[in-house]
């Protein structure tokens, strides 16, 4: 038992954080937003060159053959800066799905050329930056198919998050290449949803901490009644309450990261728990940061609103709260309970 990250895992996250600090700072994001160009090709290129897309792809399929624990802190870092580009979806969901489907050509384009491929999952029907994708994975009654960009019909779906452009994605019935049939597709989609929920949780965790940090910084510098607003217990308690939520979401998210998404009811429940706890922390942290900033927090002047909107989106993707509570109910009411059941012993298998 060792619930710490390895040196390599910490380094991977540091590298990502550094790159994001340089290329995804708020001044850059605000400029790109004003220019209506929030998807930054140069940033995408730089992120691609880190090779993160291959983390969850087995070595025999050309990837790094690592696990969720290697990606989870990178996802937190992406959430902390409200990264526009869908790196986490690509590395955390799409690349392993392509590997599981044996779609080796498409996978090679992702791993070698930094191509973006997106997934229109029934639980995430509105796809971020589908317009920048080279291809999309679509679901139908016959399973999954990979459809090239030229054969896709995209409909813009304006949303509240100014840093993610959303689309509905469809194609003619016969278009594209079948990559999974009706027998295997449901299990593949379930695994994708598990990973989606896990890495959405990790992004929300990063966002939550960024919000508390914004609130703390402002509470120290903003003065009213002749002293920093942070001397008031009302403000201290708000921020401390949000931090407590974060502290008890983080270990759940990290423990969920080592699990195979569909290994069994216990693994599924842990991922759902991570998703619920992270969403609660992120939502509270964003609203707290807004409250601490007063009217400033309700404007576009500070970054709080980016986080608030991103969390609103992430917490309704990959299944609603009710969906995840049902998964937890199945584990709690029908599964083995007790302190020896903390760590699921369900079989870990690779697709």
């Amino acid at each position, binding site marked *: 038992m060792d619930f710490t990250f390895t040196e390599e895992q910490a380094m991977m996250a540091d590298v990502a954080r550094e790159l994001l600090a340089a290329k995804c700072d708020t001044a850059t994001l605000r400029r790109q937003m004003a220019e209506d160009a929030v998807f930054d090709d140069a940033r995408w290129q730089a992120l691609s060159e880190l090779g993160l897309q291959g983390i969850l792809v087995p070595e025999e399929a050309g990837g790094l053959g690592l696990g969720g624990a290697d990606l989870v802190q990178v996802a937190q870092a992406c959430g902390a800066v409200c990264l526009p580009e869908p790196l986490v979806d690509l590395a955390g969901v799409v690349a392993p799905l392509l590997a599981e489907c044996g779609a080796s050509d498409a996978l090679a384009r992702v791993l070698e050329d930094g191509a973006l491929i997106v997934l229109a999952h029934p*639980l*995430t*029907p*509105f796809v971020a930056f589908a317009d920048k994708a080279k291809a999309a994975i679509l679901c139908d009654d016959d399973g999954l198919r990979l459809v090239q960009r030229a054969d896709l019909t995209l*409909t*813009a*779906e*304006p*949303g*509240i*998050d*100014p840093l993610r452009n*959303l689309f*509905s994605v469809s194609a003619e019935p016969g278009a594209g290449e079948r990559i999974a049939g009706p027998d295997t597709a449901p299990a593949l989609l379930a695994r994708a949803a598990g990973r989606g929920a896990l890495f959405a949780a990790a992004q929300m965790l990063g966002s939550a901490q960024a919000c508390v940090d914004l609130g703390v910084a402002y509470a120290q510098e903003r*003065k*009213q*009644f*002749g002293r920093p*607003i942070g001397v*008031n217990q*009302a*403000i201290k308690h708000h921020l401390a309450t949000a931090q407590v939520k974060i502290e008890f979401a983080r270990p759940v998210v990290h423990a969920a990261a080592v699990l195979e998404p569909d290994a069994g009811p216990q693994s599924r429940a842990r991922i759902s728990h991570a998703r619920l706890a992270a969403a609660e922390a992120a939502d509270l942290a964003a*609203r707290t940061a*807004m*409250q601490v900033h*007063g*009217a400033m*927090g*309700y*404007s*576009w*002047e500070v970054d709080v*609103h980016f986080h*608030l*909107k991103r969390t*609103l*989106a992430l917490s*309704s*993707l990959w299944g*609603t*709260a*009710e969906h995840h*509570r*049902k998964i937890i109910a199945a584990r709690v009411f029908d599964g083995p309970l007790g302190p020896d059941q903390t760590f699921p012993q369900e079989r870990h298998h690779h697709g």
Partner: protein
Amino acid sequence: MDLSYTPEQQAFRAEVRDWMRAHVPAEPPASFDGSLEGFEAHREWEKTLHEGGWGMVTWPKEYGGRDLDLIRWLIFEEEYYAAGAPLRVNQNGIFLLGPTMMEYGSDAQKARFLPPMARGDEIWAQAWSEPQAGSDLAAVRAKARREGDEYVLSGHKIWSSRAVNADWAFGLFRTDPESERHKGLSLILFPLDTPGLTRQPIAQINGETGFAELFLDEVRVPVENRLGEEGEGWAICMATAGFERGLMLRSPARFQVAAKQLVELYQAHADDCGPATRDAVLQAWMDADAYALSIYATASRLIAGGSIGAEASVNKIFWSEMDIALHRAAISILGARAELMPAAPGAGDVGDWLDGYLFSLAGPIYAGTNEIQRNIIAERMLGLPRK
């Protein structure tokens, strides 16, 4: 105690309902924060209301009102919100400045300002906050220098709702340059299109420029534009804030209608909802009900000669937190569509819940933050020691 409407009150309700049915636009006007057209469409609606005699039913007849009591006002509001009538673009005028002026203004001021306010010819903004004076409003620095029969206004106001397009503002200024804190402040009315005044729109969380920053550089107004005595500004503002937090700003009907819509949304999606959502919906409905009962009790007490004190702070906390919880319940029902704008092709029945949710998040900030209200309740209502 008699918790039933009199036949006259019932007849009044029917009269309001008929009028609203005949006049409320089928297509709601565009947001008053989003564009000048939206703002002006709301001004037109104020004119229509006024022509029908419904602009401000509690005001005296001479200023365009009907001289009705607070129970009638509540009934009016119930029918108003139930009919889906537009938001009141002149709310800072009719709900805040109007009542304040009736109490503190001169006859000449009432005659000059109240009729065009009631007609919607002059839309008002509130200019109290400054960058360094938010919760600590007594830190106001903007100055009004007396020169003959004029005041010369200079300073920087911020977060002034609807001031981007409004016509007039009522501001808090330091008339005594030597004064500090609550002393030496005065309430002064100034037009928003006047030499020396620059307005800078500020985008709110939904991207619409619902606020303005006001830079005043030697703006001249006649001394008659001061409301109340020189140096009395603080006391008057606190009275106005009482109206704002207390009854007028948020009548219960708004939340009862929202709760009803939430119940309908839930029923349309009940198959996808679990017990947590169901409980949130029921709680929202109960809270809206409790708020209405509380306001009816307050209104009855005021009619009997009572006054409103710390319950203004209690109300403000209750309605602002209820509003957030109510909208959160709706957001959770909408699932993946919750983040879409209503115009998105895939949005379906998302309606205005998202915008309403974002706006609800401002509730604990404006009209005095909830932290400050809790301090007031603890100190003035419960008698806990001040620092």
